[in-house]
């Protein structure tokens, strides 16, 4: 009885061993994901720049005037914190007839829906730019983010008659 039991166990083990021939091999996978950043402004002009125009209006009837929208799109891949800054150039909008005519940047503000990455952009007043500029976007999650910005100018009887223009620069930093 003991011999028979041993034989059965052996038969079972042999079947299991012959059930499958098997071979395994490993493959090492490396992926290098580079940092990358791209910023676009989509307004009424071509790629790389957008132009907004504030309408001429009676300050008594319209104490503020608006312009835009401009769609700001930030695409970045980082493992740090990405930021978008607005940096005004010079003291403000400068008159074309007389460069001494200036509407200070502090009289202009911008706002967006302020969702997610562009949360800091809601109701941002522009002062004179310093350093990196005025923060309008920040986040750590790589991705593509876009928001629609509108711009507001404080209207005033004190502005000299002239045609004013100025430039602000949007900068995306993704370390």
């Amino acid at each position, binding site marked *: 009885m003991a*011999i*028979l039991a041993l*034989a059965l166990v*052996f*038969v079972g083990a*042999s*079947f299991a*061993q*012959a*059930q*499958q*021939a*098997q*071979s*395994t*091999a*490993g*493959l*090492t*996978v*490396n*992926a*290098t*994901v*580079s*940092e*990358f950043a791209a910023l676009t402004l989509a307004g009424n002009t071509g790629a790389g720049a957008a132009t907004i125009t504030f309408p001429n209006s009676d300050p008594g009837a319209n104490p503020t005037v608006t312009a835009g929208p401009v769609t700001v799109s930030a*695409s*970045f*891949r*980082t*493992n740090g914190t990405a930021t978008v800054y607005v940096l005004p150039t010079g003291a403000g909008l400068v008159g074309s007839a007389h460069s001494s005519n200036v509407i200070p940047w502090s009289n202009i503000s911008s706002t967006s829906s302020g969702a997610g990455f562009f949360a800091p952009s809601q109701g941002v007043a522009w002062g004179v730019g310093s350093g990196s500029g005025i923060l309008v976007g920040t986040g750590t*999650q*790589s*991705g*593509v983010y876009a928001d629609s910005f509108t711009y507001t100018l404080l209207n005033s009887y004190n502005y000299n008659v002239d045609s004013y223009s100025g430039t602000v620069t949007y900068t995306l930093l993704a370390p």
Partner: protein
Amino acid sequence: MKVRKGILSIAVTLALALGAIPGPASLKAAGPPGVQLFITPDKMSFRMDTPPSTAVCEVTIRVIAPGRTPWRLTLQALGPLQSPKGFQIPASRVTWKGSPGNVFLDGTLSDKHPQMLGRGLGSKVGVVRFLLQNSWDLAAGQFNQKLLYNLSSP
């Protein structure tokens, strides 16, 4: 005497049974002999720059199987692609296209279950192109993982 016959009977039965037992693969008369797997190269590196794009790596797979021995080949990741800073790329972001298509199949990598990569009869050689979708939502960094091929033959 009756007892002695009984023992003899058991011994003969056992010998016959052993003769009919299929042995391990190394025994010549015992089922299919072993199959062998060769992968070249044993390391692949995806480089992902400007998205959206697809990074591609290619490996050559050779299965050595005598005669018309059937085999099947599966592939499984041991986890998501992992960066030293803790960021991950899901294994399912890696897909592959096998050729010839009647042997090596297209598929999507998984770290949960082995995925069928190929099946055939006898020795075969094929090329598998691995694709990694490059998109903005990936964190920057160096990612690593191991994949495990498993070749089996019934």
